[in-house]
């Protein structure tokens, strides 16, 4: 019960409609490469809380944790073909112009730097795309299919590299002219 109040997961409220009332032509063209007939988007059920399940360390000490853990897996994790479709969707839904070419960051955050504002696990990335984020990330849940969101998740995560904790500038120079 305690967890239900935290319900933020994909699939909580809306079914996998696959409805796309915008950019229909482009999206149809992209989707044609990958039939949307999988049931994969239904792995999540009402009441799941991605945050609490993936990060038990945020639970208070002694908090009852006898719930059955749910493993949130991207059905397309490591699937090259699905990741490729995700790359096409990344362009078709204008993700590219916000997050930069190959997710290098622009209006929206980078996906390359290994730093995830809202978590970088498959479930968390799905959640960011599905429900949007308060800093301006649009909510795509219900507008595109959950399958497509999982493929975008696979692509976005494939761009990530290790966080660059140290930037060492010594020994580098830049041409400086004029003064």
């Amino acid at each position: 019960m305690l967890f239900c109040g935290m319900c933020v997961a994909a699939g909580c409220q809306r079914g996998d409609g696959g409805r796309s009332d915008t950019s229909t032509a482009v999206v149809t063209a992209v989707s044609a490469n990958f039939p949307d007939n999988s049931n994969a988007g239904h792995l999540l059920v009402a009441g799941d809380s991605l945050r609490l399940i993936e990060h038990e360390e945020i639970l208070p000490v002694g908090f009852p944790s006898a719930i059955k853990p749910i493993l949130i897996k991207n059905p397309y994790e490591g699937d090259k073909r699905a990741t490729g479709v995700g790359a096409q969707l990344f362009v078709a839904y204008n993700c590219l112009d916000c997050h930069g070419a190959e997710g290098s960051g622009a209006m929206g955050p980078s996906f390359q730097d290994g730093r995830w504002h809202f978590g970088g696990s498959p479930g968390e990335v799905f959640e960011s795309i599905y429900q949007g984020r308060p800093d301006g990330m649009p909510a795509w849940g219900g507008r595109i299919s959950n399958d497509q969101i999982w493929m975008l998740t696979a692509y976005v995560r494939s761009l990530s590299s290790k966080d660059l904790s140290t930037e060492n500038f010594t020994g580098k120079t830049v041409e400086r002219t004029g003064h």
Partner: protein
Amino acid sequence: MSSGPQATSAAATGTGGPSGARIAVAHAGPAGEWQMPAGDYANSRYSELSSITPQNAASLKVSWAFSTGVLRGHEGQPLVVDNTMYVVTPYPNVSYAIDLAQTGQPLKWKFRPVNSQQAIGRACCDVVNRGAAYADGKIFYNLLDGHTVAVNAATGAQVWRTKMGDLSRGETITMAPIVVKGKVIVGSSGGEMGVRGWIAALDAATGKEVWRAYNIGPDKDVKVGPKLKTFYAHDRGKDLGVTSWPGDTWKTGGGAVWGWISYDPALNLIYHGTSNPGPWNSNQRKGDNKWTAAILARDGDTGEMVWAFQVTPHDMWDYDAVNENILVDLPIKGQMRKALVHFDRNGFAYTMDRATGEVILAEPFVPMNWSTGIDLTTGRPNVVETKQTAQDKLVKDICPSLEGGKNQQPAAFSPQTGLFYVPTNNLCMDFTARAVTYIAGTPFIGGNAPEKGGPGGYRGEFIAWDATTGKKIWGIKEPYPVWGGALATAGGVVFYGTLDGWFKAVDARTGKVLWQFKVGSGVVGNPVTYTGPDGKQYVAIYAGIGGDMGLLIAGDVAANLPYDVRERGTTLPDIARWTSWGGELFVFSL
């Protein structure tokens, strides 16, 4: 020392510079105050204060500093009215009133507006704000989420708050308003989001919208009527804001008003530019795409269009025309002209007749190669065919880049020297346009344009320009684009800041750097000067890298990544070594 706005002319060293030049509109309020974003309606950014001179500028020192509490791009400038300084931050657009009359500069008030967080992700080029305007005891400014607010200058209480833009369609507001005859003039951003750009006037007392003019669409919406007299024949016709677009593409065609606005009280004309057409992919919008990338003159009371000039017809390089229009009277070929001087993104500096919209002359002020020149019989650029962009075609080495020969960083004009002081960029780009679908609230761009340094091994230059001849008089080359604005003073000293965090005082006649100080973050803001309660001259500047050019630092994107539409690996090499994000106000005096 100074005789006010009609200051005497003086020849620039070694050039026989223009004589008789004067600013069309006097400074707003007392000489020691700064009540408007650009100091005056003319957008001159000139102050009559003259205590700081080339002889003593080397002894400038920090007087005090203030943290704004926000770490994003600090474009814009503070205001100074009645011994109080007014500061507006980037999103969340907090404003502060700082008491200059007391030691330690305590706050009089702090105002935190209601401002939707969603706006952060809808703004193309960092969450900047370009400043406030003062009139009738109120501070007016825009919020990123599309509202305009009026705040009581004495108490900090909100007087009104009016929704002007629709965030769900990608409309944010970053520009600084001006107040004309009791009306607050504002416009929206969103040229990269498929907006349909507009400019509007609100009643300064009540916040009620008085008029709104779109820059695209049917004549009725654009406020085209009997008052319109375009100088060039090809700009005449019915509903050009529709017929110069294929189908319904005008409805998402950009033409936003995110730059600076000027006003000539004698002609009663408001001047503003319009942004790039959307999307960048020009194959999706064949035609002139009026009135995007244009300079428009509108009636100061009604917003009706009086003249219109399209700077870059059918723009295919993201060359917005929103840069400031500076109103000065200039002696050209033996005749005093009511001029408008505009340094465009497209790399040409235009000297125009501000009564008619005629181009008197237009010359390149930065390295450029997309056009061989402006045809003065039509006002149109002669475009180099190999530099035309097209869908799915890589066009290499276009100069200037999409950031333009100059961007939002405003120039200044000194009637003493008759010269314009212009912060510029020297960047080029490789451009690939791409098919794109309009999805409300997401970018409507359709193009990728990685940038690199332009010819000559420098990426920016601070120049002095003679607009009567279209010639550069001197220049100071900089390693990075000069993204901060200029200030000219009657003391003969010009000020500007750099992306790598140097704030500089320069001899207005020779371009000699007299003094420089490394501030806490890269400068993308504009200096102002004022007289303190102690009678001394002060100069104030924001430090806080960001805006379109510094976004990758302001957004804390990891350094020197190999890919990006504006990758700093090649655009701003090593910038992260020289500065970091910040948000501070620095104030200097002798």
